């Protein structure tokens, strides 16, 4: 009995000590590799990738396997559900368990992560980025675009002709015509970005310099309500509310599904929607038109995501991460994956793409001919779209008597509360 007691006691103490040691030991090791570095061997180097685009996660894993087969470097791809990617990334970085390669959506996110992002200026692949598409912080390139994406009016070529939606008057006439015929003329859906995020980009992007405009807006020097692009945008929103069913009842799936079934003539979407359209085997031709705010004839083309490297990792890991990105952007397999498997419209000039779907082709054509307006929303305050804009848009679509003008004033309030 006595013996048992003593063993039990010492067992307990040992267990306790081990737990404590494990905790503190881990931390030490983590710190060491963060600060010292340079000791790892590249032969058995391992890199990790954490990225937010769910659509390509399987394909990326396949690509990682190809890379391991070719070079022996192990690549681990971490999964995510997409929505809370940035908070996940933040948590991992904070606990010193960050990935070697991660993705950043825009400048605002890059600036938040500026203590981590690796300066890519001297890397070879940076030279191939299409002009103006690189992600920069303090004039240093810190991110390579996944690809370019574009959004606008995705339309059914059997029902709509481009001249039907060339400006405000023709747009409203077209909506009224479709309403009389019992067809949904224009579809939005209830998810924050599809409800208000993308469509609210136009009045910002049509400013002479949208960076300056947004800064002035933040400083309170201008208001949306007094800017003419926004005044017309309010009129557009009025026309949409008056002539189409409420988007709050419509999910992304239903929006695209109704369009594929011919129940909607136009929806506000991007080239990413083609994946779903091809699942439906649509029997008509689809194309993308500019949203005709102030007679705009350009597509909104921009970068949705960028590859960045975690500069806080040790030298060997950073080098391995660079090697991987370089291989992905230059090797035949990597380029094939980017275009065919990921389905991206390449943002690197050294990648050829001739097998694009019709929406992506429209985006690439616009991009090549310079008929593009920027994604000003990349420079919005972080999370303003789901947090502040979407509730106001819901209010607008729910209340029968709120006008477009009042809606713009609400957006002004939303902006103020987001930057306070």
């Amino acid at each position, binding site marked *: *009995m006595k013996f*048992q*007691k003593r063993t*039990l*006691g010492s067992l*307990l103490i040992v*267990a*306790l000590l081990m*737990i404590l040691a494990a905790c503190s030991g881990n931390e030490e090791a983590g710190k060491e590799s963060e600060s010292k570095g340079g000791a790892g061997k590249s032969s058995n180097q391992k890199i990790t990738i954490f990225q937010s685009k769910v659509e390509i996660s399987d394909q990326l894993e396949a690509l990682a396997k190809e890379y391991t087969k070719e070079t022996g470097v192990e690549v681990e791809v971490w999964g995510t559900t997409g929505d*809370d990617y*940035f*908070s996940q990334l*933040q948590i991992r*970085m*904070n606990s010193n368990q960050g990935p070697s390669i991660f993705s950043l959506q825009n400048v605002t996110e890059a600036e*938040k*992560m500026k*203590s*981590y992002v690796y300066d890519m200026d001297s890397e070879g692949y940076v030279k191939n980025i299409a002009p103006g598409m690189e992600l920069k912080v303090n004039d240093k390139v810190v991110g390579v675009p996944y690809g370019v994406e574009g959004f606008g009016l995705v339309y059914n070529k059997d029902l709509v002709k481009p001249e039907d939606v060339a400006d405000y008057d023709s747009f409203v006439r077209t909506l009224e015509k479709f309403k009389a015929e019992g067809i949904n003329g224009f579809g939005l859906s209830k998810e924050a970005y599809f409800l208000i995020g993308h469509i609210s980009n136009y009045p910002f992007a049509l400013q002479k310099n949208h960076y300056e405009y947004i800064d002035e807006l933040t400083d309170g020097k201008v208001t949306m309500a007094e800017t003419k692009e926004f005044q017309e945008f309010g009129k557009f929103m009025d026309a949409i509310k008056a002539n189409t069913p*409420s988007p*709050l*009842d419509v999910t992304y799936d239903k929006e695209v599904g109704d369009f594929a079934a011919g129940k909607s003539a136009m929806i506000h979407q991007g080239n990413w929607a083609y994946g779903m359209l091809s699942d439906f085997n649509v029997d008509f031709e689809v194309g993308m038109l500019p949203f005709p705010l102030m007679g705009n004839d350009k597509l909104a083309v921009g970068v949705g995501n960028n590859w960045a490297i975690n500069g*806080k990792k040790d030298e060997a890991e950073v080098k391995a991460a660079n090697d991987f990105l370089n291989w992905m952007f230059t090797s035949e397999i990597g380029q094939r994956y980017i275009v065919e498997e990921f389905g991206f419209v390449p943002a690197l000039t050294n990648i050829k793409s001739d097998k694009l779907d019709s929406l992506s082709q429209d985006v690439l054509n616009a991009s090549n001919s310079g008929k593009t307006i920027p994604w000003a929303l990349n420079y919005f305050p*972080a*999370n303003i779209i*789901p*947090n502040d804009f*979407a*509730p*106001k848009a*819901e*209010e607008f679509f*729910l209340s029968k008597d709120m006008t477009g003008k009042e809606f713009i004033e609400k957006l002004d309030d939303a902006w103020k*509360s*987001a930057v306070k």
Partner: protein
Amino acid sequence: MSNKSNKWWYLLFTTPLLLIFITVVIIPFLIGIYYAFFEWDGIAANPKVFVGFENFVQLFGDTRFLASTWKTILFTLLAVISVNVVGLVFALLVTSKLRTANAARTMIFMPYLIGGLILGYIWQFIFLDVFTLFGKVTGFDNVFFNWLIDIDYALYALVFVFTWQMAGYIMIIYIAGIQGIPNDVIEASKIDGANGWQRLRKITFPLLMPAFTISLFLTLSSAFKIYDVNLSLTNGGPANSTEMFAMNIYNEIFGYSNYGFGQAKAIVFFFIVAAITLTQVYITKKREVEM
């Protein structure tokens, strides 16, 4: 075995639990209090600025937080009443001489086994498709429409789904309470000529007081802390009308990246929940009767 060695056995089994509890609850809570005094965006490498009690002062100027406080209180009030009434009625039904009592018991308890997230998504579908269709077919479209996109009804929808989820669980507690009431007391009352309602009021309810204490505590605290159903059913919408406490805190921290301010909210939230539930337990405990 002697008492002394028993002590070691207790230690062996409680230490791991205690360690886990300390690491995942106590320590984060203390660190959270610490962060509440800083202005910080939640990224380790970025600077933390000490601001003292400013975060707490700022709370009272945050209209969205105050609105969500009011919504949470309203929701909790409605939810506690409806969950307990429905749960108690169910318990009384399935302990009566109902033929299908056992099957009913299982079925009513079932929703509790479904996770809150999934439950929310299922009901989202029901409100969006089933309700609207039913309203169209029967003509009662002023009752059966998509509640989730109506600023006032969305909160009731949340109460409804929460009741659906919790009532079965609360029923189990009431059943245990009802079965604990000695049969001879009931029989004696029958002989004395008490009718069903009198028996319920004078005997069942007073003797159920301990069950009330537990049920009210459980529903109060879980209604206050509701997040999963809130997230999946309405995600705070439409127009922020159903943004409860927990969601407001999450959005503050991860949406706006105000880590310190969000923590301050969380601390205040903790004290509110603690104060309300403790008061409730104190009051109902005093009304418990000894047999």
